């Protein structure tokens, strides 16, 4: 090859190399690895980017954790830790740190809401058939059946001593109102331990937690599902750089009997659902509030919701049964309009 041609080749390669380097090092945003799944009987989506280049490995590791969470939190599968606790006949049971944390959080929240959020409604769930995905099992129990189950409801029947828990009076725990948020927190911790500068989000059953801002400095946009639309239909949007957003609603597990809608969030005093809201979406810096506040609001109604929100420092976007939108004053901090 002629010397001149060699020089031309080197010159060209240098220019092309510089262009490639500038594209990859400056303009191209981090590549997010996104994985979907169905875990713990609900949808899961995790999107993650890290400069360490091991996003897929970390996300796969996060998904592997669900096998462990399944063995802990599923109250309806014989042999799970929670199932065993619910069937322990009032004996003290040593529980795992994960289960203990969620039980403590749930009981604390029950105390804070004076029992309007109550994780001991466990016996009501199978009574209505909402413990299964089989819609043919969902039905309206008799008033007598509901009264009988209510005898076994009450958070004061949960005793905690160190790492042991005792359930009195035959109560059953159902931790669905808190579990997703806890798992969000644990998975986000895994992501940040891998790389404190990493970014992405974790969505477990509609409770979305932020690992880090999108591309390092932009908010993630979270749609709020239209409670009377399809699962991809958003009625409003939240922008989040950090923190959590969760939603409670009446639109996935419900039956309509004589024109009245009954759904899976029960008033611990009556055993029936209350028809105050179609959905309540909560933004919080704490995952347990994003989950628990919505459940509490569906049970307690608007005045109680308005009173409780400032105490917890949460922002909410609620749609009442007439389809009207009710927003907290601080909602505008998070509101996104495309």
């Amino acid at each position, binding site marked *: 090859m002629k010397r001149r041609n060699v020089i031309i080749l080197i010159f060209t390669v240098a220019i092309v190399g510089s262009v490639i380097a500038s594209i990859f090092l400056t303009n*191209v945003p981090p590549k997010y690895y996104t994985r979907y799944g169905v875990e713990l009987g609900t949808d899961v989506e995790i*999107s993650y980017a890290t400069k360490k280049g091991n996003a897929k490995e970390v996300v796969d590791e996060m*998904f592997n954790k669900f096998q462990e969470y399944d063995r802990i939190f599923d109250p309806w599968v014989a042999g799970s830790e929670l199932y065993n606790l619910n069937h322990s006949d009032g004996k003290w049971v040593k529980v795992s740190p994960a289960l203990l944390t969620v039980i403590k959080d749930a009981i604390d929240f029950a105390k804070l809401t004076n029992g309007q959020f109550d994780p001991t409604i466990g016996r009501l769930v199978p009574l209505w058939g909402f413990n299964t995905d089989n819609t043919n099992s969902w039905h309206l129990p008799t008033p007598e059946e509901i009264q009988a189950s209510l005898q076994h409801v009450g958070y004061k029947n949960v005793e905690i001593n160190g790492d042991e828990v005792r359930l009195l009076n035959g109560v059953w725990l159902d931790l669905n109102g808190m579990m997703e948020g806890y798992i969000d927190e644990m998975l986000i911790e895994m992501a940040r331990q891998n790389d404190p500068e990493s970014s992405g989000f974790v969505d477990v059953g509609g409770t979305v937690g932020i690992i880090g801002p999108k591309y390092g400095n932009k908010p993630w946009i979270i749609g709020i599902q239209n409670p009377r639309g*399809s699962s991809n239909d958003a009625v409003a949007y939240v922008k989040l750089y950090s923190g959590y957003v969760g939603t409670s609603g009446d639109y996935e597990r419900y039956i309509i009997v004589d024109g009245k809608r009954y759904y899976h969030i029960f008033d611990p005093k009556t055993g029936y659902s209350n028809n105050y809201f179609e*959905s309540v979406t909560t933004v919080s810096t704490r995952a347990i509030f994003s989950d628990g506040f919505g459940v509490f609001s569906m049970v307690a109604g608007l005045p109680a919701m308005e009173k409780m929100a400032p105490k917890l420092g949460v922002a909410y976007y609620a749609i009442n049964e007439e389809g009207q939108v009710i927003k907290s004053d601080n909602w505008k901090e998070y509101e996104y309009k495309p």
Partner: protein
Amino acid sequence: MTIGKSTNTNHRIFSKWDLLLILILVTGFGLWIGLKQFAPSAAKAVILLDGKVYKVIPLDKNAYYKIYRGDTYLMTVETRPGAIRATYSTNWVFPATETTQISVATGWISKEGETIISVPNKIVIYTEGMKEKTPYDVMTFQN
């Protein structure tokens, strides 16, 4: 334009034809990289079953596909150019035409970011290479 001079000769290192060749090469490389990096891929749907890729379907024609777990029939999906929907789903108890199923009620999806999910069957369907994207990155829904 003189870029440099040979030490042995008095000729220019790059003639105008050399510069033209360099320009063509650089532009060609640039276009190739740009197209590879930023060109949209063809619209397709990815079907996950039990967390693993079950099938990738190009969304370029009207067609039906059945989804099985082993020998057990689970769902039929229908495609048309740029869209997919679940038309017929079953699990261990539901009658096959149960209209309250969320996967079927989801209807057509045609934007990147939209999903069809059947929790009982552990099926997730999402799209790639679509012309439009949802205005959101992820959806919050009731838990």
